[in-house]
């Protein structure tokens, strides 16, 4: 197997040694990214087709808004009955011949997977796209233990060769230009240069084929865990997950505990909604349910199948009824696709496994509010994400809730004082009017003095001169 550079070792952002620096780094990276207008235009263009395709597919629903209700309700009733459904899934999956493993945190999950690899005497591991494995930095751990790991999803493979984490949790390498990919393949795979996406895809396809056949262990994620039948559901387009779960001797799937749904029938709503919101497809190319290892009478399939159920602070979100719905997330990526912040600062600036609006909501829960609240602040609260979400998560209002929780638990001292003074003035009309008068009269002077916040405004934007009279005085005189 071709030795590959370790993708995870150099994760920019996902492994900030001193998390206190997260905000500083965010501001720095955002400013840097914003200056790169060429890159911003490239990302906008790449996402440009999304709206058209998605809207065309939405129009084929007889009532898309009600279908969103149905999807939302399916997830609501599952997440709020996790105590009942998780054990039921585990029991049914075990009855199907699979093995369930429980991981309280990332370290435990890594240890479980490494244990399984040792038990299987694995030599080569093939992976299909799995964001939970990014979350627990699994590749790093496997490589440290000497396992060769290859990401089979084209985008993830490109990111692995580049030594970068995914830029977008559904479109991992959407920020990379085709000529960069051509150079990358030339360097690592010895392929001839080309500017055709088709040819580049075929280079990866040819490279990967042998690896599927040779791998002893396949690692995948799971989009849904069906409690009723003990099946896991995997959504993909390329067929790499089918091959990863079909050819190796052992199949390991890693999934967050919030992925459980009650009934198999729920998928008849959730699968099309996931595809439509995520990429504008009626269904993604492969939606596959696995209930365990190969059964007697079946001609192929793994001898062992394992599911690792990961908590890793998901129960912290569960314990917050107000934001519990953020566990409804089916990771379709729609909220990223429509987010003006994501499009302007790019995926890496977040410094998180889950980028975009939903990442800004959940990361403070997963990794600490004090260090990650700036992500909730970095939003104009435009609400495009909430409108796009197929399961109706109240995304942008949760950003507001995070800001409130942060102001309560760790208020900025000067900031709180500022708001208290403002409120004190707003409670006294005469004082407020006087303050307004003073503001209008001294605006010219303020513009010249440039105190910090005004300076930030004036750096890129003009401010009109103040009118001579306020509305209230004009009204009085009328």
């Amino acid at each position, binding site marked *: 197997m071709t030795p590959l550079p370790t993708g995870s070792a150099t994760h920019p952002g996902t492994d900030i040694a001193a998390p206190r620096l997260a905000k500083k780094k965010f501001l720095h990276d955002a400013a840097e990214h914003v200056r790169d207008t060429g890159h911003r235009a490239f990302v906008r263009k790449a996402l440009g087709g999304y709206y058209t395709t998605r809207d065309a597919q939405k129009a084929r629903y007889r009532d898309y808004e009600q279908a969103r209700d149905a999807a939302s309700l399916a997830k609501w009733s599952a997440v709020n009955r996790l105590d009942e459904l998780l054990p039921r899934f585990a029991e049914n999956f075990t009855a199907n011949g699979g093995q369930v493993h429980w991981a309280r945190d990332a370290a435990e999950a890594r240890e479980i997977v490494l244990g399984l690899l040792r038990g299987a005497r694995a030599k080569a591991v093939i992976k299909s796209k799995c964001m939970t494995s990014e979350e627990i930095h699994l590749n790093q751990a496997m490589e440290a233990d000497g396992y060769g790991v290859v990401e089979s999803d084209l985008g993830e493979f490109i990111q692995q060769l580049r030594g970068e984490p995914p830029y977008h949790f559904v479109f991992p390498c959407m920020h990379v230009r085709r000529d960069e990919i051509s150079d990358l393949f030339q360097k690592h795979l010895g392929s001839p240069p080309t500017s055709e996406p088709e040819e580049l895809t075929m280079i990866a396809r040819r490279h990967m084929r042998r690896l599927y056949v040779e791998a002893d262990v396949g690692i995948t994620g799971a989009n849904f865990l069906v409690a009723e039948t003990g099946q896991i559901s995997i959504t993909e387009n390329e067929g790499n997950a089918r091959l990863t779960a079909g050819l190796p001797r052992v199949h390991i799937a890693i999934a967050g505990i919030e992925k459980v749904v009650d009934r198999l029938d729920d998928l008849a709503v959730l699968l099309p909604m996931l595809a439509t919101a995520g990429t504008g497809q009626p*269904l993604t190319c492969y*939606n596959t349910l696995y209930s365990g290892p190969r059964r007697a009478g079946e001609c192929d399939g793994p001898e062992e199948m394992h599911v690792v159920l990961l908590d890793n602070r998901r129960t912290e979100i569960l314990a917050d009824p107000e934001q519990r719905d953020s566990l409804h997330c089916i990771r379709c990526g729609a909220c990223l696709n429509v987010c003006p912040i994501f499009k302007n600062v790019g995926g890496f600036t977040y410094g998180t496994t889950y980028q975009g609006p939903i990442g800004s909501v959940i990361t403070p829960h997963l990794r600490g509010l004090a260090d990650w609240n700036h992500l909730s602040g970095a939003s104009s609260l435009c609400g495009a994400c909430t409108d796009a979400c197929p399961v109706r998560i109240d995304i942008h209002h949760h950003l507001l809730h995070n800001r409130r929780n942060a102001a309560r638990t760790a208020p900025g001292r000067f900031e709180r004082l500022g708001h208290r003074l403002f409120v004190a003035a707003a409670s006294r009309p005469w004082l407020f009017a006087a303050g307004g008068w003073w503001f209008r009269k001294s605006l010219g002077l303020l513009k010249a003095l440039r105190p910090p916040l005004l300076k930030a405004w004036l750096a890129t934007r003009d401010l009109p001169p103040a009118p001579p009279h306020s509305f209230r005085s004009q009204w009085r005189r009328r």
Partner: protein
Amino acid sequence: MSSTRMGDARETILARVREALRLPAPPPHLQSPALDPAPTGSLPVLPLEAARPWLPDGGDSPEESRRILGENLARLKAELHHVADAAAAAAFLADLARGRNWKRVATHGHPLVATAAATLACDTERVDAGPFDKDALEACDAGVTSCEVLVAQTGSVLVSSATCGGRALSVLPHVHVVVATADQVVPTLGDALHAVRERHAGRLPSMLSFITGPSRTGDIERILVLGAHGPKELIVLLVG
């Protein structure tokens, strides 16, 4: 990891879950007044039947379902061919193999598939006749399979590991040919799930896969390319 630590983890997680759920969540933000939880105080658990009229149409009659299936397959860049009977399917497949100069075609023991592949002039590889060689399957030009059902609503082919030649046959060869009868078309995904449950009562196959068009990727500059890792072409032969 020792089994006790495993047990601990299970118990800890479930205890955390139970503790977390002690405070009830507000009802979801729904738009449809039909789902308003207020009158009963508790949320309806929505049966799939209730959601059916909101999802894309799968047709109310077999003719309509077949028409919708055809439209969807065309949009997905899959091929659909209607053939009169099993003999016609075999003739079509033989022509296809000759025209494409296929050297080796993989099949399995389903009667419909066996008949369709009976007159192939090239080599064939049966995957369900005993352990098969993965490399040999990978080298096949095409895989011919049956399916459980075809779904009009989404243009999907549902294959299972139990009846459609296992897991790899429908995804490893470069072209996937599906042979199905017209009465296998069902309107919706819900109907498809219902059908497999009836057929495999109490014992679902280890894999069920909804295949919706040929394998694809948009990973490079979001430009659509067919045949990422799975088949580049999906050809459906509908008999009858």
